């Protein structure tokens, strides 16, 4: 197998706040091979967006990062500012959530898509940039003449497509999609995701897909990692994990999606009781035990490590 595009080794991120240290990510290790895709799922506040920021070193100054982030073989946290700027967008690019806010309202979208190319000087002349912008727009299904439009003249789905075009501008090896379809309606969401999947196939892109919607990840990702309270609690091939979860938390998440035509899930919608834990005050032992239907006394004592739970699968639960 070729060198992985992204490797996280025991990544830890702690936010220093006036109320004390808040550990948002507590020792996450994962790997995405070239052309592979990983879905990262979890509830709000489990640290999944912090991981997205940590990969390109975009976290605010209050965040303390330890562990290693290897992007295309380079340790992002060892790079000098110039080297870091060079890696950003050429090795890994982000498709932001909230397309309206990620676009500058007073700049034409063509100029915004050209921006990464001009910053990284991957094109030599404005004319070449224009041609490339037209190509990119066509590749995401927007007519090239719309390059002269301002963001407010586009629909929500078109704006999200523009952000995807922008992410592709410097031919990155890895796309980080952080809730890329949050504010879109279901039909447009499906179109945007199909587009992402097509582009991945054509360009052999690796994808880190972050969302709380488990069913999307199963469709669009090879592997799945479930996060709870800043750690990965289960990972494995996406179909297997969704169909036969090992961790009680994954089971709760998977059960929260009703199956169409299934009477029993219609009559008794299930899900997880309780709220996600406060990262600043995690419960002792397994952080999931207060909400776990299968919790035992020993769950209060030690936090379980990830262990093999099946072929290519790992889960962090003593019951595995």
């Amino acid at each position, binding site marked *: 197998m070729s060198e992985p595009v992204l490797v996280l080794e025991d990544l830890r991120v702690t936010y220093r706040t006036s109320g004390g240290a808040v550990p948002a990510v507590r020792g996450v290790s994962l790997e995405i091979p070239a052309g592979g895709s990983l879905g990262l799922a979890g509830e709000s506040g489990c640290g999944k967006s912090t991981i997205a920021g940590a990969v*390109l070193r*975009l976290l605010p100054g209050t965040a303390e990062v330890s562990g290693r982030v290897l992007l295309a073989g380079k340790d992002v946290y060892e790079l000098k500012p110039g080297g*870091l*700027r*060079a*890696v*950003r*967008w*050429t090795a890994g*690019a*982000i498709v*932001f959530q*909230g397309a309206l*806010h*990620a*676009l*500058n*309202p*007073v*700049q034409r979208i063509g100029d915004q898509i050209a*921006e*990464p190319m001009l*910053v*990284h000087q991957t094109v030599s002349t404005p004319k070449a940039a224009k041609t490339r912008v037209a190509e990119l727009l066509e590749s995401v299904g927007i007519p090239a*003449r*719309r390059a*002269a*439009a*301002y963001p*407010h*003249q586009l629909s929500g789905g078109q704006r999200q497509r523009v952000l995807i075009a*922008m992410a592709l501008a*410097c031919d990155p090896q890895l796309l980080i999609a952080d809730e890329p379809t949050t504010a879109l309606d279901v039909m447009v969401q499906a179109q945007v995701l199909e587009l992402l999947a097509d582009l991945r196939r054509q360009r052999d892109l690796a994808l880190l897909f972050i969302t709380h919607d488990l069913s999307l990840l199963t469709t669009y990702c090879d592997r799945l990692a479930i996060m709870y309270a800043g750690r990965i609690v289960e990972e494995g091939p996406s179909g297997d994990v969704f169909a036969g979860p090992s961790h009680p938390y994954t089971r709760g998440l998977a059960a929260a999606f009703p199956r169409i035509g299934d009477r029993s899930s219609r009559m008794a919608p299930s899900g997880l009781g309780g709220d996600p834990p406060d990262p600043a005050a995690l419960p002792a032992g397994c952080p999931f035990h207060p909400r776990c239907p299968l919790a035992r006394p020993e769950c209060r004592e030690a936090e379980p490590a990830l262990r093999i739970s099946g072929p290519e699968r790992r889960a962090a639960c003593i019951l595995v």
Partner: protein
Amino acid sequence: MTVRSMTRSGAPGVSAAGSFWRQFRRSRQGMIGLAILVAFGILALVAPLIVDPAQFSPVVARTLGNPQWAPPSEFPPLGTDHLRRSVWAQFVWGSRVSLTVGLAATAVTMVIGTAVGVIAGYRGGRLDSFLMRITEWFLVIPFLPLAIALASVLGRSTRNIILVIGLTSWPWMARLIRSQVLTVKQRLFVDRARSLGAKSGHIIRNHILPNVSGLILANATLWVPISILSETTLSFLGLGNPGNPSWGKTLEEAFANGAMTRNAWWYFVPAGLGILTVVLAFTMVGRTLEEIADPKLGKER
């Protein structure tokens, strides 16, 4: 309403400047103000064709054989002053001086204020605190004593009047720009620009400045009348350029030579009305620009 939303979304080729002008044209106060400014602008531009500045010398005025203290009926169109000079000529020339000083002083204010405001707001931290303390230091010094002291140190010339006004009025602009930069900096597209590897200079040029430029333009327009009034004040206090009669200078001389007690209204009324009209026109245009730049201020929306 429908028409507006159609023109907004249905015409991708229309430039931002075009839609700005369309909105401006809809405002009656903006158009009246603009018409007045254009009229005075033309007057100021053609002033050298109408008036020979040499005639402001009392010696030349005497050799021309002008009467002294002549009302408009005796020496049309606006009579003469105590030194036999034509008041009309002074009025025309004064429009040139007042507009030049107003615009140039505003430009100085804008350049310093924008530079300080953008750097303080964008960089933040200690540099921000340092620049803001300097700004406050300038803010707490009363304008007139500082301006008078500076003007007398630098000497009496039109260029120094411009510098004095610019150097004393930038702090307001710096604070205004800084606050706007602080909000723009928080927007996601600035993070996006940083995440794609852009340097600070690029982000400021491409993302910060274009998003505060509407505010800068509107405030620049509102700052011109303040600069004109400052020039008037300084000239009235005798700190203006004696050889270059501005409207403020005219008022000062009329006052100092007893035009009011002589009932020589033609000496001071034109200059006073000129200042009033130009200041009002700039304010009208500035308010309109401000409403377009910040739609929340508009009443009808």
